[in-house]
């Protein structure tokens, strides 16, 4: 589904990603872990099409298409979704209006039929229930405005549920969540998971992975994936921290 080859990315001449290789297939959950500043969020943003970054080398293919050629919206039309680390507040627009517009645009771009107001509403109620979000929050309030950290993250997962992406990128979705909110958000993701879609979970801590169990864990350090493994690798990181990985990657022997 997603094929990243030797991806190098800079921001204002500073190289952040220094050659990423990653392959994600349908039905898989990948976790990208790593210490702060390792480039995790940059990778998620670049895949979603954020324009502040310059891709200097490498390729990203999504279902056979050159992803880097596509605008942010065209990536959404192709089925990519980024759950933001810091969801944006949009005063004056309810989540419902926002999503209605988004779905209209996506369907138009895909040449699909227009979704009737009735069907949209039914879908909304179903998905709201699925991710346990209060419908008042999405029908009456402006997008994320005045929401608590947990409500914002839940709204991200709700939007993901509505847009039914093929590839979901969850950027530090666990940050700022208490254990109950974390469980609700993770449950939402698990319920949406199926054999035809894939999820990339970007996280600093292992705790989200107790709930969203990854098939693969990759450790990003200093702009490169320095270690890949299964969920046991995440456990090991939780226990031992990142220092041993850094030492290994930097070629310094551990004490």
């Amino acid at each position, binding site marked *: 589904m997603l094929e990243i080859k030797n991806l190098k990315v800079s921001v204002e001449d500073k190289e952040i990603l220094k050659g990423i290789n990653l392959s994600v297939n349908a039905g898989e959950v990948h976790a990208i872990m790593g210490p702060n500043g390792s480039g995790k969020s940059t990778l998620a943003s670049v895949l*979603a099409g954020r324009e502040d970054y310059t891709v200097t080398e490498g390729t990203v293919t999504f279902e056979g298409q050159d992803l880097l050629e596509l605008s942010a*919206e065209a990536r959404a039309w192709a089925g990519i*979704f980024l759950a933001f680390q810091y969801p944006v507040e*949009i*005063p004056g627009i309810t989540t419902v209006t926002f999503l209605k517009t988004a779905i209209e645009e996506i369907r138009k771009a895909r040449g699909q039929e227009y979704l009737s107001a009735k069907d949209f509403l039914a879908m909304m109620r179903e998905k709201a229930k699925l991710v346990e979000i209060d419908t008042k929050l999405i029908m009456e309030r402006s997008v994320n405005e005045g929401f608590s950290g947990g409500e914002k993250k839940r709204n991200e997962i709700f939007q993901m549920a509505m847009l039914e992406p093929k590839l979901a990128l969850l950027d530090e979705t666990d940050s700022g969540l208490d254990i109950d909110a974390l469980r609700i958000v993770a449950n939402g993701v698990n319920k949406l998971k199926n054999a035809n879609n894939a999820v990339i979970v970007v996280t600093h801590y292992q705790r989200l992975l107790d709930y969203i169990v990854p098939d693969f864990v990759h450790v990003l350090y200093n702009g490169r994936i320095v270690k890949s493994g299964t969920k046991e690798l995440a456990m090991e990181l939780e226990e031992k921290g990142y220092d041993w990985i850094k030492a290994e990657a930097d070629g310094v022997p551990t004490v």
Partner: protein
Amino acid sequence: MTSTIDIASEVTGWVGNFEMLKSFSSGLAPEVMALRNTAIREFERLGFPTTKHEEWKYTSIRGLVTGSYAPAFRAVSTPLTAAELHARVLPAGLGGTVIVLVNGHFDAALSSIQAGTLQVGSLKAALESGDVAVMDHYAQIAANEGHALVALNTAIATDGAYIRILANTISTEPIMVVHLGYGDQVMSNARTLIVAEHHSEAKVIEIWHNWSDGKVWENHVSEIVVGDGAHLELISIQNEVGEFFSLTHFAQVHQGTGSTFRSTVMSSQGNIIRNNVQALHLGTACNTYLNGLTLLNGNTHVDHHTLVDHAQPHCYSNETYKSVLNGHSTCVFNGKVMVRPDAQKTNAFQSNKTLLLSDGATVNTKPQLEIFADDVKCSHGATTGRLDETSLFYMRSRGLSVGKAKALLTYAFGAEVLAQISIPELRESLQAYLLEKLAGE
């Protein structure tokens, strides 16, 4: 220096107009004539404001003053029918009382008055009848001193709208006042007097409209009394005035104890538009909300001057002015908040936000807080910028095209102001208008 000379000679011309007006205003009471005489002397003393005047620094009316506008002393009839008025000028879905002024003159055929708990109609007729309620307030609310255009209006205003909401009554349907311009090189001087007596409640919609392709300049004065415990909402719509319409409007509001005054102005067309709104608190526990949405393109120039005069303790004021500027348009916001020594426990907030959509558009914003009491909460904020890139990316990442994301963000920016309008039909029609305008850009 020729500009000063031009304008000075124009003043002489207008004083001459005043003399002419006297000959056909025989029906007026001597006290009204006395008010006019004093006013014309004040106008003569002040002359038309130029950009050297601090309050007119960013708004030049030189083109209007030297533009050979003739006073609309006589009523004219238009080919407009009441049915057309409803279909093309009035907001959809609203009924009730409609007062139509054509070039400042009350037009009985186009107006439809539903009396009930209201006393509404021609200001001239009310003045001629010697109505005590009118004489108590007429030219007593808006000061001529220091305001040349108010003084000129007081001196030569021929007619206008009079609205009196009787004490302890609620006017459920909004009262509409249509200011229709008609002709070319016409300057009308009309006046609105609104008296919301104590514990009354009403909503007034002012609609400015140019029913001609000609140049029309309205120099308008509104005197508004919001009695003790009264609630008055005023919505001013300046959307369908075309590019040849100019407005200099001075609205002075006097608020009694526990009263609420809420004003929303939406401006999206015109040549030069100047809106002054001034609220003075005469009693404690007043609430004042002044809001404006300005949506401009082309060369339109819109200037909002506000003053909230907190003269009494425990009052609240909140101003939200937003503008979306495109083309070579200009917007001015000058918001003054005065907190006098007695006005302890004042809460006064002000915000002015502008979205600049083109390189040629300009905004001049000047918040002015003058605080002479110590136990108060006051704040002001002004921002000018473009659409937030992070918000745009957020929306695009959910599948909205750049154009759609921009339109929706801009809409949301403006709709926040319109959301404060309490008449659902009007709010929705203005929101739809906003959406339509943005989709077209």
